[in-house]
């Protein structure tokens, strides 16, 4: 699936690298900008399928890119946004996921571009409307030490399912990953929701949001 992707990244080398990578997977990049101010203009001009943006960018050199991404999701409800970050901080992921847009959304560590196939896969999934959360961020949430850990109640298999759910995988994808049937996955998810007291077992963004906000408590 060839996508039209607008890239925002302040480092010239990294920008060229990202464009090259995306083009190697058959996508086109109509615009690649270097700061958070030029990003909305480029999106308005080119109407891309997906925006790939860095978190830390000029003008403020703090989380300008992330805030631009949140604003874009707000302004263009169908737009898919994939954010690249140097930090496995769940607070950033939560900020990005917070406003519910209809388009796909992803938060990946910059390290992930080294796993070129996984990265390319994530790009396609986000463009298709899925939610993708970096495995490192999810691992950090799941391995967090708690005085009373409700996750102790889960079986090892249920923990695996929860991890993949938190990363944004759909039921079919989870089933493929764990080499089980769709029905088995649905049963595990039902158990997890019951044990953790979560409500709403529907697929997609809202489920990821529910799981992540539960884990961040």
């Amino acid at each position: 699936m060839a996508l039209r992707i607008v890239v925002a990244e302040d480092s010239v080398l990294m920008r060229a690298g990202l464009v090259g990578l995306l083009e190697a997977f058959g996508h086109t990049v109509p615009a690649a900008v270097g700061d958070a101010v030029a990003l909305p203009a480029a999106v308005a001009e080119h109407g891309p399928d997906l925006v790939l943006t860095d978190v830390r960018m000029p003008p403020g050199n703090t989380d300008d890119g992330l805030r631009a991404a949140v604003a874009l999701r707000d302004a263009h409800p169908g737009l898919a946004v994939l954010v690249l970050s140097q930090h496995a901080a769940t607070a950033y992921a939560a900020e990005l996921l917070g406003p519910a847009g209809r388009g796909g959304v992803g938060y990946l560590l910059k390290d992930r571009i080294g796993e070129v196939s996984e990265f390319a896969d994530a790009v396609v999934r986000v463009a298709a409307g899925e939610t993708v959360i970096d495995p490192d961020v999810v691992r950090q949430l799941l391995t967090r030490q708690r005085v009373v850990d409700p996750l102790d109640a889960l079986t090892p298999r249920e923990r695996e399912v929860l991890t993949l759910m938190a990363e944004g995988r759909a039921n079919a994808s989870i089933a493929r990953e764990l080499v089980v049937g769709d029905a088995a996955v649905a049963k595990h998810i039902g158990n997890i929701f019951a044990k953790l007291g979560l409500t709403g077992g529907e697929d997609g963004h809202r489920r990821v949001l529910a799981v992540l906000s539960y884990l961040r408590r």
Partner: protein
Amino acid sequence: MSSEATLWPTMAHPPRFLRSAWPWRCLAYLVTTPLFALAGWLAVLPTFVLVGLPVGRWERWRLRLIHPAGVTDPHNVPEPGRRVWLRTRLREGATWRELGYALCLLTVLPALDLLALAVLGVCLVLLAMPLLVVAGDNAELRLGEHLVDTFGEATAFSLLAMLPLTTLTVYGLCVLAGAQAAFARSLLEPTRAELDRRVRDLAHSRDRLVAAFEAERRRIERDLHDGAQQQLALLSMSLGLAARELGPDSGRAGELVADAHRQARLAQSGVRELVRGIHPQLLTDHGLAAAVEELAERCPIPMELDIRLGERPSAPVESTAYFVVSEAVGNAVRHAAAGRITVSGERRAGSLVLTVVDDGRGGADLARGSGLQGLSDRAAVLDGRLAVLSPVGGPTSVRVELPWLCG
């Protein structure tokens, strides 16, 4: 008027003298005397004023006889350059006090001390009366009508009269030395105002150092973020692309590339940890509560957080508070064998108050733990306070209180 003529013979003939150039020459001579004297004084005066400087230095050294702890030098350290040095010294009150002291030292003080020593000398000679009498050197002493000239009388006189008197004199001498040293100190030490100014200068320079330190940390973090982190990500990407080009059955070459890829990933996570330790970006972007939350997510011991601040304090306060929590949590993990850590923070009357309590074995000491000591210093720079309460057996409580706003 002949050029060989001199003043005195010419004066003998008043009419000729008064018409001659001599009165004018005399007048000119007299007028130039004070001018030259003035020039001489102006040339010598600075040197004269500066006489106090070496005297002061020498005397402060000599004062160690009375004040072994030493006496502080009151002078400022001037900028380089002789002129600047001279101007600095002439403007300092200390220079003029030292001059005053030097004048006393050259006049009154030695006379006073010699007089006192002379009294002691007389006392000692009289104390030695018995010996002098035995030596038979025609030694005798007249006390009113009575003549002391036998050994027995001399001994009695020495023991009964001179011994107490000599002791008293020695006491008097010590009082004199003490008083003189106090006088010297009052002139050679920095005054209260000078000390106050020095403390103010030190406080300012400490503030600047801390600010520079903080700026340097941020610069290093930024350099790593913009440099090494990006380059490693690109390297990793190139290796990923190379592996993809090679395909799944690429033998030895594929193994080598996969190996290099693994090492690049390790380097990436290493640099990421390093950057977090230098200055967490999350702290800048989302503030203290979020940064401590992230600390809790990676902490191997359960952490309970109760940080309710509302708005954000100023950046240096936030940063110091974060590193205090980070250090206290690190200590609890490394040394205390704690089972849980509680971090609470709130705004209380213009201050940020943070407490980190762990249920470990305690025994932490601010004086020994260099990390906590450094943070205590950092807190002090912001006019804050760090207190560690850690009885042996636990629990350990680290409490830091910082002004909400600063800088």
